[in-house]
């Protein structure tokens, strides 16, 4: 009797699990976990100008940007802008709004120069380092525009969407010139990457079979096909639960995470060394920040961070600008709640299209100034 009821419970549990997924699937709100910080009031924009893809994220679409340059760039010198979601997100977007990336591309075309942008949500400087090494092996980069973000100094790890670039020996060779670059390329293969579904099957006979089975299942069972979205929803739920329990919101003070900070500073330094070796000009800037409310940073740490970035940049002979106050309070907005049942919250990172206009103007002026110095 006990055995029988145990088995019935097991069967009901299995059926219940599948039913649960169908219930969640009816909530058709796919979530990309990495874009969670944007919320509903902000929109990611990766622009295509006149059929040219001039703004990419990472290896998932890098080929399109490189192909567009090869077709339309006519061997023009390239200014490469690497950034985080501030670069591709427009707060409270309206029709025909443009990002700074688009505006800069158009303006530099008038000077017969090619302005190309890559941005990834929460990108840390180690990721920028790998992307930079990838780009200089594929495109004649003459100028690098590198924003430095205090929040992103708290990030670590290399996302899988950048990993394919590490299979290119020239990229590995470029990175190998720096101590951290060498470590990043060596360590990468030995680390766990939840983003790569089949990483555990690399170099095995099973990999192909698993891929085929997963494709068949995706085609025949909608729940299976929706799994990435479910994972996003689940992680979003955990993230919001944590924020709710501990009262965390975008205004909560963020401190430096020493281990990550050290690695990102080292990456920053090695990016500049690599650029110097390749004869590439660099503009480093501190990103615009909302200044009408208390900043969510530990004040002393933030000041020390800016000072350290400026010192390293100038020591290596490159240009530094502090753009933290160029976007006035009116051009900032709010974001969806990052906690369960919460209200709109202040957005410290993403501004409106007017903010993009001002940022584009500042970068444009600075790059012209740098050009005239040469």
């Amino acid at each position, binding site marked *: 009797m006990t*055995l029988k*009821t*145990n*088995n019935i*419970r*097991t*069967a*009901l*549990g*299995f*059926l*219940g*699990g*599948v*039913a*649960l*997924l169908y219930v*969640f699937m009816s909530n058709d709100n796919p979530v990309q976990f990495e874009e969670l910080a944007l919320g509903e009031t902000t929109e990611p924009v990766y622009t295509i100008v006149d059929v040219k893809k001039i703004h990419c994220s990472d290896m998932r679409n890098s080929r399109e940007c490189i192909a567009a340059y090869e077709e339309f760039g006519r061997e023009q010198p390239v200014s490469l802008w690497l950034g985080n979601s501030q670069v591709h997100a427009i707060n409270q977007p309206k029709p025909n709004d443009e990002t700074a990336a688009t505006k800069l591309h158009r303006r530099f075309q008038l000077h017969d120069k090619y302005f190309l942008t890559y941005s990834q949500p929460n990108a840390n400087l180690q990721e920028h380092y790998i992307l930079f090494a990838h780009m200089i092996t594929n495109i004649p980069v003459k100028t690098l525009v590198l924003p430095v973000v205090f929040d992103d100094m*708290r990030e*670590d*790890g290399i996302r899988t969407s950048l990993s394919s670039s590490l299979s290119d020996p020239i990229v590995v060779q470029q990175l190998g010139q720096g101590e951290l670059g060498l*470590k990043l390329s060596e*360590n990468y293969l030995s*680390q*766990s*990457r*939840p983003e*790569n*579904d*089949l*990483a*555990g*099957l690399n170099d*095995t*006979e*099973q990999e192909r*079979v*698993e891929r085929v*089975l*997963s494709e068949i*299942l995706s085609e025949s069972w909608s*729940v*299976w096909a929706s*799994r990435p979205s*479910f*994972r996003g929803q*689940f992680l979003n739920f955990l993230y919001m639960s*944590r924020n709710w329990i501990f009262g965390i919101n975008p205004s909560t003070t963020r401190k430096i*995470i*020493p*281990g*990550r*900070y*050290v*690695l990102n500073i080292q990456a920053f330094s090695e990016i500049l060394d690599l650029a110097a070796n390749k004869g590439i000009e660099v503009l480093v800037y501190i990103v615009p920040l909302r200044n009408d409310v208390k900043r969510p940073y530990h004040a002393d740490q933030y000041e020390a961070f800016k000072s350290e970035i400026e010192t390293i940049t100038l020591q290596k002979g490159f240009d530094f600008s502090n753009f933290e106050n160029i976007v006035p309070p009116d051009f900032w907005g709010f974001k969806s709640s990052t906690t369960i049942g919460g209200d709109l919250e202040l957005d410290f990172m993403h501004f409106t299209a007017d903010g993009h206009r001002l940022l584009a103007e500042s970068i444009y002026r600075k790059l012209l100034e740098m050009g005239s110095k040469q």
Partner: protein
Amino acid sequence: MIFNSLTYLVLLAVVVPLYWILSYRARLLLIFTASITFYGFWRVEFIPVLIFSVVVDWWVALRMYSASEKKRFRLLLISIGANIGLLFYFKYLMFFVDNSVSLANIFGAKLDPVLVNIILPLGISFYTFQTISYTVDVYRRHINPETDFLLYACYVTFFPQLVAGPILRVSEVIKQFVERKAFCLNHIFVGSRRILYGLFLKVVVADNIAPLVDQGYSMPIESMSALDVWTLAFLFGFQIYFDFSAYSHIALGSARLLGIVFPENFNFPYLASSPRDFWRRWHISLSSWIRDYLYLPLARVKVLDRSVGGLSIATSKKGDGRALYATWAIMGLWHGANWTFVLWGIYHALMISVYRVVSPLGNGLNEKFKSVGGVFLTLPFMMLGWIPFRAESLNQTFAMWGKVFDLNAYFWLGMRENTYLITFILLIGMFSSSFLRKVFFTNSPLLSRGKQLLDITAIAVMVALVIVFLRPISQFIYFQF
């Protein structure tokens, strides 16, 4: 083949129904074919190595049975030599060469490092130990040799335990194959439940802890605080436990689908009240193997012939200290060809030695107090023991251990807040799951309806999360051993 994959579930879906409708010989043939297929899905070229090990030990054991005493010993040496030879070539040759080159260079030889990459055949440490135990048991006359090659081959290659154990004895498996059990739905439900638990622990828990551990251990030591070291020690301790116990759950569940019952390989090891108790609860089949085929012979104590009990007998003997340290150094080396693993083994030998000295001091204390106090004393030491197991080098190990004793390093945090939070939740979860299991599920019959609902809900949530997270993003940690 990896358990946490669709391919494995398809293999089970094909093998299990066929198994129950086939006749005895056909069942054995099916198991052998499925096992070779399972192994070949990793790398086909290493199947001959596996078959070689199977054939040698089967042949040696048969010859040994009717041979003279002197010849029996020679045959035993052939068997052990063949298996240890395979292990040495694939697992330790480069370690030996690298260390020899380094040693020679210390004395001014100026040799270049040898750059050869030898791929370690999956599961070789497990199946060689299993086959060694077989020939040794025949040599000791604990068992008779198996005359049926197919039956013996099924014992060694049986896919649920082929690549990461449990390391089973002939007497525990072959008789179950021979029994020719009739189909019973209970096997399917119980087996499915165990597989579900295993998949949940692997794909939902262990695989999501792994990136945090990887990131933590790749941090520069100087930016780690003492609390970071403790957190990383605990976090890796949880990762390896969930990962390996997940494997064991799936192995036990898969075997159960075919009506085969394996002994348990884990029993809440982090609730152990002493180092001795820990090794009665962690990777029990390996501990028992080490006890019977290494430690007790070295300590000249009579041996047992079963894979249960862990190291309880071994560690309670106040025998030869050299045997203890030698056993643990070898056990460490078994896990990997690196000095960090040797250090890990010696650390545990030291823990056991200290426990032997310290435990009599608590003789007058209340048993419950001793038991609970023992858990809180043992746990941190067991977790610190994982540092050499996960660290890249001895330098990293000692630097991390050094932080623990640096009082100034306790006043700041070097990692992202989530890392501490997740570690804390896992710690609380571990204690509360054991508590709930004991109190809620066994002592409260009045709550049976609530219990049933909770059980169904827990299974439903686990099923949903396993479906969502089932991806072979990483192999099981113990596959590398």
